[in-house]
C-alpha cells in the first residue's frame, strides 16, 4: 500500500511538470510580460521605465524558457519559467499581480466554494439515487417512462437557463432569498439555498439517468434473478442486493470528484456573487493574471491526481479482492 502510494506520488511529478509547461507556454504566447505590466499599471500615463521596473520587481525581466546570455545549467535555471515553477512545487504560489498572496487567498476562498459544492454534491447524490431507485422500482411502467423522459428533457436544458430562471423567479419575483452575495457563519444559509437547489436540480437529469442504467445493469445479473426466485420481496432485492452492489461504481465515480469540489463552480459562483475559487479563476482569466491562473491549474491537476489515488484506495476498501501493487 505504502509502496503504491509512493509510486503514485512519484508518477504525479512528471504530470505536474507537464501541466506546468503547457500552461506556461500557452500563457506567454498570449501575454508578453510587457502586456502584463501595462495591464497592472493602469491606462493613463504609463512609461516604458515604469514597465521595466515593474517587470524587474516581479521577476519577469528574465528570458522565458532559455537564457542565452549565461552558460551551462544556468541557461535553464536563470529563467522566468524555472524560478516560477520551483516555488510552485513547494506550494509557494507567490503573489497575484495585484500584490495579494495567492496561497492566502486560496485558503480564504476555499470555504465559500465548499459551502456550495459540498451540499450540491451530497444532496445531489441522495436525490439522484432516490430518483433512480424509484424509476427502477417501477421499471417498464408509465412512471419509469415518464421519469426517463423527464430526465432527458432536464439534461437537455443548458445550466445557464436553470440559473437565470431560478434567480429571476425565486429572488426577484418571489422575494424568497437574496439575489446574490455571501456571508460567513449561519447567515450563509439564505445565500446558499438557491444556488445549491439549482445545482441539485440541474444535475438530476444526467445523474438520475446514469444511476438508473447502473441499477438496471445490476438487475439483469444472475444473482438478482436467484434472489428473486427465492421469493425475496422486490424492495428487499432492490435495497439489499442491487443498491449494495451498485454502490461500487457509484462510490468510485463520486470519489474522483470529491477533491475537485475544492475548485468551486465557475458559473454558479459568478452568477451568485460568491467569493469562492471558481469566481477567483474567472476573474483571473479576465484580468489575465498569470500567477493566479497557474496556481489554479496546478491546484486543479494536483486535486485530480489525488482523486485518482483516492479512487484506487476506495476500490480496495469496497472490494477486498482488489489489491494495490
Amino acid at each position, binding site marked *: 500500500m505504502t509502496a503504491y502510494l509512493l509510486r503514485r506520488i512519484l508518477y504525479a511529478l512528471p504530470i505536474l511538470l507537464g501541466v506546468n509547461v503547457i500552461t506556461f507556454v500557452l500563457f506567454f504566447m498570449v501575454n508578453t510580460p510587457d502586456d502584463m505590466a501595462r495591464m497592472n499599471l493602469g491606462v493613463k500615463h504609463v512609461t*516604458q521605465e515604469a514597465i521595466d521596473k515593474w517587470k524587474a520587481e516581479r521577476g519577469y525581466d528574465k528570458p522565458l524558457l532559455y537564457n542565452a546570455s549565461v552558460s551551462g545549467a544556468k541557461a535553464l535555471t536563470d529563467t522566468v519559467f524555472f524560478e516560477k515553477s520551483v516555488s510552485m512545487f513547494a506550494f509557494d504560489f507567490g503573489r497575484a499581480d495585484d500584490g495579494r498572496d495567492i496561497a492566502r487567498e486560496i485558503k480564504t476562498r476555499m470555504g465559500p466554494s465548499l459551502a456550495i459544492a459540498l451540499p450540491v454534491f451530497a444532496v445531489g447524490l441522495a436525490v439522484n439515487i432516490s430518483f433512480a431507485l424509484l424509476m427502477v422500482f417501477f421499471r417498464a411502467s408509465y412512471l419509469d417512462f415518464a421519469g426517463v423522459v423527464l430526465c432527458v428533457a432536464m439534461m437537455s436544458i443548458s445550466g445557464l437557463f436553470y440559473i437565470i430562471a431560478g434567480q429571476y423567479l425565486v429572488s426577484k419575483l418571489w422575494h424568497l432569498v437574496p439575489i446574490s452575495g455571501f456571508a460567513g457563519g449561519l447567515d450563509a444559509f439564505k445565500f446558499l439555498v438557491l444556488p445549491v437547489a439549482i445545482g441539485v436540480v440541474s444535475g438530476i437529469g444526467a445523474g438520475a439517468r446514469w444511476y438508473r442504467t447502473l441499477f438496471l445493469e445490476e438487475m439483469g445479473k444472475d444473482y438478482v434473478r436467484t434472489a428473486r426466485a427465492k421469493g425475496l420481496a422486490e424492495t428487499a432485492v432492490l435495497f439489499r442486493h442491487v443498491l449494495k452492489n451498485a454502490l461500487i461504481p457509484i462510490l468510485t465515480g463520486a470519489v474522483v470528484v470529491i477533491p475537485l469540489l475544492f475548485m468551486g463552480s465557475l458559473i454558479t459562483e459568478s452568477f451568485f456573487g460568491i467569493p469562492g475559487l471558481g469566481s477567483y479563476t474567472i476573474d483571473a482569466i479576465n484580468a489575465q493574471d498569470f500567477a493566479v491562473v497557474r496556481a489554479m491549474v496546478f491546484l486543479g491537476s494536483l486535486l485530480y491526481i489525488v482523486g485518482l489515488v483516492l479512487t484506487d484506495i476506495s476500490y480496495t476498501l469496497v472490494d477486498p479482492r482488489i489489491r494495490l501493487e
Partner: protein
Amino acid sequence: MKSTSRPHRFLLLGTLSLLLSACDGAAWNSPYPAADQGKNILYTAFTGRPKHLDPAQSYTEDEAAFTAQVYQPPLQYHYLKRPYTLIPFAATEVPKARHFDASGRPLPQDADPAAVAYSVYDIHIRPGIRYQPHPAFAADASGKPRYFDLSPAELKNIDTLADFEQRGSRELTAADYVYQIKRLAHPHLHSPIFGLMSQYIAGLKDYAATLEKADKAKTGPWLDLRGYPLEGAQAVDRYTYRVKVKGKYPQFQYWLAMPFFSPIPWEADRFYSQPGLAEKNISLDWYPVGTGPYMLTENDPNRRMVLERNPNFGGETYPTEGEPGDRAAGLLADAGKPLPFIDKVVFTLEKETIPYWNKFLQGYYDASGIGSDNFDQAVQISGGEARLTEDMERQGIQLRTSVATSDMYMGFNLLDPTVGGYTDKARKLRQAISIAVDFEEFVSIFANGRGIAAQGPIPPGIFGYREGANPYVYDWVDGKPRRKPIEAAKKLLAEAGYPDGRDAATGKPLLIYLDTTSTGLGSKSRVDWLQKQFQKIDVQLVVRATDWNRFQDKIRKGNAQLFFFGWNADYPDPENFLFLLYGPQSRAKGGGENSANYDSPEFNHLFERMKNMDNGPERQALIDRMVDILRQDAPWIFGYHPKDFVLAHAWTYNRKPNQMANNALKYQRLDPVVREKMRARWNRPVLWPLLLTLVLLGLAVVPAWQGYKRHEKATAK
C-alpha cells in the same frame, strides 16, 4: 420499506428550516444581518477590489470612492456650486501662485507666461486636525512607538489591522504633505503621475534618482524620505509648506484637490514597511491612514468594505450656499450642520449590474447609477428632460442628472493612409463619416438617452464650452442642431474620391477598419449598429475585435484606423481635453495621450498659448478658434458626452451629482426608519410557489406510494 419516501422528507426538512430562518424579523431576502436593521448605515456597492488605496498610486474612480473619504488634500471642490469651484479642505485658503523669473525676481500676476521661470505656492493648513486612530501612532508607556519593531511572535497573532490592540493619533502637520509629495518619486511606488509631475515640480526628477540610489544603499526595510530634501516641496513651519512649480502652471491648483497631494504621516510609512505585514495584506494599499471624515475599518475585497466615521474628524460644516435651485431642491436644509451625517458606509461587492439594480429596487442599496439596460424602467425622456417612470415615482425614488465631464469619441488615426492626412479629400472623407455615424441614435439605443451628442471636444460645464452646432456635421435648425442629411455625407464622400463608396480610380469598395475590444456584453449589437451606419454611405466597415492589450498595442504603434475611446477629465479645465489632440502628445510618436496622432501646427501653437492662460475672453477666443480647426479637420467623430444619472431612494438626502468631487459621502444623510418601513413593504415573500412545490411533490408521491403498495401485494401473492 420506507426508504422511498426519504427524499421527500429531506425536502420537507429543507423547507422547514427555510421557514424557520425567515422568522428572525428581517425580510427573507435581506442580504444584511438582522442586527444592523434600523442603524444609520449607508449601503452601496463596489464592483471590484480597488487596487491602490495608497494616495501616491491611486488614480481610478473606484479607488477614489474610498480615498476621497479617508484622505484630506489641501483643497476640495465646492459640493453644490457650479461651475466647479475650489475651496479649502485642510488648507486655510486656496493658495495663490507667486511667479518668479529666471533670476528669482517676483513677477506680477499678468506677466507673460513665457517669462515665468517658476511659480511658488504657499499652503497653510488648519491647526488642530488629527489623524484617525491607527496602530502606527500607538505608543507604549514610555512614549515610544508601540508597533514599529514587530517580533515574529507578535506577527503571528496578527491577521488584519483590527488585530492591533492599541491605537493612537497625532496632529496633522505640513511636513506630512511634503512627505507625500516626496513619495511620488519613490522607486517602489510607480506613481502614475510621477512622469507628469516631474515636468512641473522643481527637482522631482533628480529626486527620484537620489531615492533610487538611497534605496539601494539603505540597510533596513524602510527608506526615510525625511532625510532627503526636495527642492520643490518644503515645510516652512509646522502648518505651512511651499511647493515650487516650474514655469506657470495654473492647473496645479486642481491637482491639490486630488488624493495624490494628501498628507501621509511618516509613522504610517515606517509602520507598513515592516517585513511580514505586506504578506498579510496589511499595507497602505489596504488600510489607508488619513484625517478625512471616514476611516476604512474593514477591508475584505472579496465581499465587503466598511467605512466608519473618523472620531477625530471635526470642524467642517455643510455648505450654506449653492446654485440657484438648490434651496428649493432641499439641498440646503442641513446648511451649517457638522459633517459627516452617516455613521457607517457598507460597500458590498457587486460585480454584475443586474443584481445591483435589483437590490436597489428592493431597497437594499440606497442609491444606484443606472445601467443602460435598466433605464427604460427607470426613466422617461421627454423633450430632452429625463423623468422617472410612474412605478419608480410611486416608490419615492429621486433622480438627479448631470452631464459628465467626459468625452466618448471615435478617433481616426491621422497617420493612416486612407483616413489620415490633412488634404482636402481626407478631411471630406472624415466629415462624411462623421455625418453618417448617428450618435443621437447611438445614445438612444445604447445609453438610453443618457448623453448628449458632442459638437466638439469640450463638454458642457467646462470653461470654453459654447452652445452651438458643429457646422460640418450639423445644421442649426430652430435653435437646435440637426444632423445633416445622408445625401450631404454621400456628396462629401464623392468629393473625397469615393463615389458610392468605391474608389473612383480603381472601383474597389472602400473598407474602413474599426479596432475595438469587443468582448463582453452588448458588443455584437454595437458592431451590427456601426456597420449599419457605414452602409448608409455604402462604405464597408470591418470590425477588428481584439483583447485590451492588443488594442492598446495597436493604438500605441499607430496601426489602428478607427477606434472608440473615452476620456474622463482629471480637472475641470479645457486644457485637460484639448491636450488630447496636441501634436507633441501623439501616442505613436511620443507615447502621449493623443491617440489620433493629430498634429496641426496652428492648433499646436494656439494650444501652447491657451494652456497657461487664466480663464477670460481672450482664452475663450483662442479656444473657439481651436475647436473650429478641429471641427473642420475632424480627427474625431466627436461622439457624445455621457450624462450621469443618480437614482436615490426617498430616505436619502443631500445628493447632488458632482463630477469632480468624490468626497460626497460626508454631505449625505439618510432616514433609517423610513428605509426599514419601505423595505418591509417591498419585500413581502411570495409563498404560494413554495406551497405549490410541496403539493406537487405530494401529488407525485401518492401514485408512487399506491403503485408501491400494489406492487408489494402482487409480489406477496
